């Protein structure tokens, strides 16, 4: 069920198509392979953060601190790389660990001390911002010493060579098909009704086409951007996590009825702490990508990203009360937000209008979503 399309999802597909249509009409460049690649990179960054946010909202909490977190942990890494000339991987690893610990602590405070996540993370927002500025001394810290490249800087600038992306793409399609077959057989052997072969085949086929098309378009420019690969991997993980593992299902359970979950013997506290820790890791990852994207740590990195992440989740039909939402939705939500911004930048629309448009779309999308959910 959770993996079948709902009116909800349709509503989003529609909004997305509308937005794309409008921009394409206003400026055909919008669908140029180059711009699409750019869009994909920007999309990956927001979407990854949104996935993390999803894992926190699912059990009914929220995280306002991710924005400044992105700045801080991106900053720590670049300071280590640029000023202490550590190797990029090491620097990123350390910063990652720090982030996980920090969020783990916040999670502890939330569950053990029963302080609402809203507050803890609001506090975090302020503390991380301050620390961030201290760490980079309000200056500009590049992610790599003069002009050359490292793992850090490549995060958002590397494109897969054609052959790699084709192999990958084949593997993925193969995987999907295999999984389909397996689950069909399992369903058979358990004597469930099995959708007839054509349908299954179509499903796989369509998926395959979509992926292939994407690879082709990207290769037209420079190839599949690394960020999108990272996103794809993470998304798949989170999908499996939330739909097909205990941890994920428990997140839903806790989100929709904590008391019941507890009585059913679910380790509520551990669960929440873990979801926060995961968020920490994702924040760090986003931090690296966002900083790499800007090329250097500056005081403004990450500003308001928490809002974008939350918006993405909510537009994607995640309930802020917890217990409802799914990965697909979140991805769509993020894609809507990003397309909007990218398109408007392409049209050099003035900031005032950008704000208004963002606000309107956010509200409309959710409104549409709610309407559809209610009939």
């Amino acid at each position, binding site marked *: 069920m959770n993996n079948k399309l709902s009116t909800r999802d349709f509503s989003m597909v529609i909004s997305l198509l509308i937005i794309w249509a409008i921009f394409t009409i206003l400026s055909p460049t919008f669908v140029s392979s*180059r711009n699409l690649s750019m869009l994909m990179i920007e999309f990956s960054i927001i979407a990854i953060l949104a996935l993390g946010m999803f894992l926190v909202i699912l059990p009914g909490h929220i995280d306002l601190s991710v924005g400044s977190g992105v700045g801080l942990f991106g900053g720590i890494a670049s300071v280590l790389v640029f000023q202490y000339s550590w190797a990029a991987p090491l620097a990123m690893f350390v910063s990652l660990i720090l982030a996980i610990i920090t969020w783990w602590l916040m999670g502890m405070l939330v569950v053990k001390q029963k302080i609402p996540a809203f507050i803890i993370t609001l506090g975090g927002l302020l503390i991380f911002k301050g620390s961030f*500025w201290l760490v980079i001394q309000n*200056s*500009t810290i590049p992610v790599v010493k003069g002009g050359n490249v490292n793992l850090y800087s490549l995060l958002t600038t590397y494109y897969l060579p054609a052959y790699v992306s084709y192999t990958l793409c084949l593997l993925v399609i193969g995987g999907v098909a295999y999984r389909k077959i397996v689950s069909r057989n399992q369903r058979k052997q358990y004597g469930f009704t099995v959708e007839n072969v054509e349908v299954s085949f179509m499903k796989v086929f369509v998926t395959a086409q979509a992926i292939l098309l994407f690879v082709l378009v990207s290769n037209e420019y420079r190839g599949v951007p690394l960020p999108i690969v990272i996103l794809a991997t993470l998304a798949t993980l989170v999908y499996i996590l939330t739909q097909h593992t205990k941890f994920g299902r428990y997140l839903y359970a806790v989100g929709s009825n904590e008391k019941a979950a507890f009585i059913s013997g679910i380790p509520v506290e551990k669960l929440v702490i873990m979801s926060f820790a995961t968020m920490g890791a994702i924040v760090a990852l986003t931090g690296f990508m966002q900083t790499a*994207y*800007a090329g250097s740590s500056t*005081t403004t990195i990450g500003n308001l990203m928490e809002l974008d992440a939350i918006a993405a989740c909510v537009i994607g039909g995640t309930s802020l009360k917890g217990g409802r939402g799914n990965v697909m939705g979140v991805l769509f939500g993020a894609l809507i937000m990003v397309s909007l911004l990218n398109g408007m930048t392409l049209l*050099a629309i003035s900031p*005032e209008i950008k704000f208004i448009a963002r606000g309107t779309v956010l509200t409309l999308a959710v409104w549409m979503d709610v309407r559809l959910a209610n009939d």
Partner: protein
Amino acid sequence: QNQVTPPSNRDNQIVIGLSLDTLKEARWQKDRDIFVSYAKELGADVLVQAANSDDTTQMQNIEALISRRVDVLVIVPHNGKAMAKAVEKAHEAGIPVIAYDRIIQDCDVDVYISFDNVKVGEMQATFLLDSLSNHGKIIRIYGSKTDNNAFLFKKGQDNILEPYIKKGMIEVIHEDWAEDWKPENGKKITNAAISLHGENFTAVLAANDGTAGGAIQALTEEGLAGKIMVIGQDAELVACQRIVQGTQSMTIYKPLKKLAQRAARLAIDMAKRKVIVAQESTDNGKINVPTIAIDVQAVTKKNMEQTIIKDGFHDRKDIFNE
């Protein structure tokens, strides 16, 4: 030395209140450091406030300085119009006010000392024209539309560029405001421009080194870095590094040391109620404010040595990161 000192400080210790727009940019930290250390040499204390580019915060900061009964106020207004009120309040409390780097409009501020931002914009534009020999397609990245300094820079650039744009010698193929001065926005804007118009443009005129950095990031990824000239301003360390690497063509160096030290001396003199002599004057909408102007310099690969490094604004080894 036998001047009337305000009753507040029983000891003759002079206290200067320095209210900064922001410390978010490296440049202002330099201002602060130079100003403070020099004032100390001259035997005065300095209370520093930074407002995170927020007018209300800056009002509160200044209120606080007045509460602390400073002898003289040095204000770097985030927004020249908004700080008029602050000046009045200071004067009510009998505290003289120096406008530092940015004029404060519609009030009787005592002195204005700066290299003004309009001039900076003009200088950027002039350099652009010279090195393009007045012809070419350019991208313009303005600063945060909510920060009126962005408008000052733009004004300066326009003063020079308008005629050429009218004549069609300079064509602005893409222009946009970099929200919040964010480098990534500078990058997005440049990307948009490239997506729209391809690579046939010759220069990017950015509002500061931060946004310039964003633009260069985009160009690098496009393999255009170095081929296309990028102009910023502020002489940030990274900018200087880019200049020596050749990815950025020019930045504007404001000899902060001169400015800050001059301002510090000025402040102390005013605290001691000495008479100030200023050649120029600036109309701030209410009065003609006595003005002390300090020249800015365009910095390129060529004159890096004679300017930045000579003044010790940045160390050579940092710039060439040896």
